[in-house]
């Protein structure tokens, strides 16, 4: 019966964990000198070759972040809010260090739906919505406490395009087209 190829696959799936889903609540420093909240969800599928220490996963990731700012980089009285909905796909390389500790590296590419608002005294509020390409690089530490559950921490650097931003120009500020986030991770493996 085990000679049937389908049975091999079924047995493999029953004995190992090849999928994961992670929730990643955290904080994010945006294009402006401000910090806001972020929540990411990442799912992946993969494993390792026989005898290979690193494990490879194809991953998809969604993140929503919102950052408010009203500091000195803007003109007096101005306040901005920037929201990002990121969708990215890429690769995770996970290396078991000492059980149950693993480190991983993510590289992703995708797009973000960037929504910005600029409130100005005595002037109408400006808002902008546009899709922007992005790249994400993350380094994470994972503690596989149980077979099907892990916790961890993650640092992520997001690179955005350098195109001009109408709201930033209207506010008299210069944006840094990158974001940095720190998050906790709660993972389910199956």
């Amino acid at each position, binding site marked *: 019966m085990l000679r049937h190829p389908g049975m091999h696959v079924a047995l493999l799936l029953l004995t190992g964990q090849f999928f994961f889903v992670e929730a990643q609540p955290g904080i994010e420093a945006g294009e402006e000198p401000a910090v806001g909240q972020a929540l990411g969800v990442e799912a992946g599928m993969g494993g390792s070759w026989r005898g290979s220490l690193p494990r490879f996963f194809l991953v998809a990731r969604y993140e929503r972040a919102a950052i408010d700012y009203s500091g000195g980089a803007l003109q007096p009285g101005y306040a901005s809010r920037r929201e990002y909905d990121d969708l990215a*796909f890429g690769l995770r390389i996970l290396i078991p260090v000492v059980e149950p500790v693993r480190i991983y590296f993510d590289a992703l590419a995708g797009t973000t739906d960037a929504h910005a608002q600029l409130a100005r005294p005595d002037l*109408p509020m*400006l808002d902008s*919505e546009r*899709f*922007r390409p992005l790249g994400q690089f993350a380094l994470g530490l994972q503690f596989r406490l149980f077979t099907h559950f892990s916790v961890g921490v993650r640092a992520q650097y997001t690179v955005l395009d350098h*195109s*001009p931003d*109408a709201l930033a*120009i209207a506010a008299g500020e210069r944006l840094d087209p990158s974001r940095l986030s720190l998050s906790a991770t709660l993972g389910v493996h199956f």
Partner: protein
Amino acid sequence: MRRLAIPVLLLAACDGQDSLGSLAFKRSDESGAAPIALSASTCVLSVAASKYRPWGLYVFAEVPLDSSLIGVLEIDVPEAGEPKPDRVIYRELEGIREVFHSQAVAGQVTLLGPPRERRGEFELVFAEGKKMRTLKGSFSPPQRDLPGFDAGEVTPSSGGDVGVQVDDSGCDSTDTSSSDSDGCDGSDSGGSSSSGDSCDGSSSSGDSCDGSSSGGGDSCGGSDGGGAGCSGDAGGGGCSGDAHAARSYRLMTRTRTPGALALRIATWLLPYAIVGAIVQLWRRRVRRRAVALT
């Protein structure tokens, strides 16, 4: 089709980005002095920041007027429909102090093509109490010549319309050679004047005034200053019957021909069709190789 989703998404991400541009205008005030030609030191053109996106255009420009004074012009107009009164603004700043601020505007903005082309002309009169600023100029994205504008003095009008015209008829070819500015470099353009007809007179002016006074090509903005025009804002027996004076915003009817719409849709679809064709060719080639190997 699903395989094409990501490239399509990435292509879409590249569309509609904000871009720096050029803007120049001739400015005159209530003193009656000759208009001065000026060009923007900063100018950004954005469909994404328009209240009317994706069928509108937002223009923000900072224009040095002298060593300490900066003019800030904001224009946010829809391709079709009526612009909001508070979305066309002109301010003059001395440091952070405003010496002029007006959202009471009359005049006209003409988009030369769809908003994503980011080219246009404007002829606007801003009022703040007894102060008045008349701006007549044009804007365009980088690497494109500024559309020319009529060098003649704009007649200030105390009451008028802001209208939007979209000229799909290629009007820009008439006078691009006569633009009078070098763009956003902050230098004065020397006051050389443009000549030739502006698009205002040549495109869709006949149907711009609710059909009531198509006349000889005068736009509403210019014709209603004396109260006899077609806007009817200031009690001039006009068309609309509204009775508020300087802050009236009415649309000058836009002519969108089905042919232009079809052409626009075709230009949107063309990149995706090319990507699809390349993918198909590549798959066919792979199949041929596989057959050859077997």
